């Protein structure tokens, strides 16, 4: 970029400033043209009928929040708790002095990060076949918590590992020099600091998990257990109208956008503190 007045030589034709102005003007013209074209081509009556159908919406509206959103939150929260605990365990095993524990952890992380979450959900129902007589407690809720937990644990384990490594070595040394055992020092000093460090990425993981909870629809749920995606899909089948899908999509955004904003805020605050 040239500062105004920096070019002393006289211009031939357009000045650089005029050329920039002209280029920007052309981009606006293209944008407006596209918007106008789309607006003319779209059938506004059909859009209102299909996507903003108030009659269809009013039928599902209370249940969208009282059942579907509530269940989505339950599935996400329980999956997150399982994933958090298992992820922390895996991260600690990853640093174990017993080599097989390290291998188990590394293998788990590789496998579960490499598999589509959908495949895990399709297999959850078959789990009792491997352990006759075993039932996942809590029915669909238990299966959802386990499925989402198994998936997110692999990602959270990697996040925790980075967090544990980011705690300065001196913290462990200071704790040990005071007579704490390795385990005690990990528990009281290192892990709490690691968790603080990884709060922003863990918030992002919560957003991802909130979206992944839509996979619960593959577990076969009753009307009372339905979550947002399935609810939208079912309602739109009943009325042969996609309005409910749009509504459930907007409900996801109601949660994911503020959460994403919180995660970015936490991130920048932490960045500033260091």
């Amino acid at each position, binding site marked *: 970029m040239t500062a105004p007045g920096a070019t002393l030589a006289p211009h031939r034709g357009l000045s650089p400033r005029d050329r920039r102005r002209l280029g920007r003007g052309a981009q606006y013209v293209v944008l407006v043209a596209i918007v106008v074209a789309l607006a003319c081509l779209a059938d506004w009556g059909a859009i209102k009928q299909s996507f903003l159908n108030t009659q269809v919406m009013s039928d599902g509206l209370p249940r969208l929040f009282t059942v579907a959103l509530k269940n989505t939150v339950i599935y996400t929260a329980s999956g997150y708790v399982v994933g958090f605990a298992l992820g922390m365990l895996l991260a600690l095993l990853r640093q174990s002095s017993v080599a097989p524990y390290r291998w188990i952890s590394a293998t788990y992380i590789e496998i579960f990060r490499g598999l589509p979450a959908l495949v895990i959900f399709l297999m959850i129902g078959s789990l009792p076949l491997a352990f006759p007589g075993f039932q996942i407690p809590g029915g669909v809720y238990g299966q959802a918590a386990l499925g989402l937990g198994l998936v997110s644990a692999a990602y959270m384990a990697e996040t925790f590992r980075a967090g544990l490594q980011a705690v*300065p070595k001196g*913290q462990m*040394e200071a*704790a040990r*020099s*005071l007579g704490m055992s390795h385990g005690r020092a990990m528990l009281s000093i290192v892990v709490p*600091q690691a968790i603080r460090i990884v709060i922003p990425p863990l918030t992002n993981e919560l957003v991802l998990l909130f979206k992944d909870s839509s996979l619960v629809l593959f577990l076969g749920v009753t009307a009372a257990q339905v979550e947002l995606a399935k609810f939208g899909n079912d309602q739109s089948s009943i009325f042969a109208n996609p309005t409910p899908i749009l509504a459930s999509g907007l409900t996801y955004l109601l949660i994911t956008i503020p959460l994403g904003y919180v995660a970015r805020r936490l991130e920048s605050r932490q960045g500033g503190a260091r």
Partner: protein
Amino acid sequence: MSTVEIRDLRKSFGELEVLKGIDFTVEAGQVVCVIGPSGSGKSTLLRCVNLLERPTSGRVVVDGTEMTDPDVDIDAVRRRLGMVFQQFNLFSHLTVLRNVTIAQERVLRRGRAEAERIARENLERVGLGEKADAFPAQLSGGQQQRVAIARALAMNPSLMLFDEPTSALDPELVGDVLSVMRELAGDGMTMMVVTHEMGFAREVADRVVFMDQGVIVEDGPPEQVIAAPRHARTREFLSRVLHPEG
């Protein structure tokens, strides 16, 4: 019985031998300053005393307990040894008070009230009684280091280890830390101090040990080692430290 007794201590990091056969003792009540150029092995020697570094060979006996014996409960011995680090290493997620109470509660099993009383006493002792509720990041380096000293003292150690306690401090903050250490020495604490502060060593130390390239070159009272060194290597080091402009 000596507080610290070290025999033929060797320590290698891979190919590099950092300590090449150290014999060394600290008697109860003594203040021993260890000086020497960087890379001479003085910090490694200090860290071998509480086994933050595991010796490659040799014996380290602290308070009559052989630290190098694999069957010894190291944590039990470390309880009686205070350590102060160059980088302070305060627990950054805990308040100053909690920094000083946590090991008392978790290691010595003192009750919350007793631990807090002892913590406040020691924070007063280092002149930071009013900072109990602050977090480490809110303190200056010198204040953090004094909290670290209070944290170690709260465990009633029989020996305090200082690893270059003022090297990471801004020059104007060094004095406060040194005066706390001076008082501690005056109270009869057994201390082993790795330092570049020649003034402190000369004034406070009962013995000064000069190390170079993994061996102890000279060991004696400060008026000998600092004021009238016998070895050429000691003289050369001191002239560089005391007259850096050459």
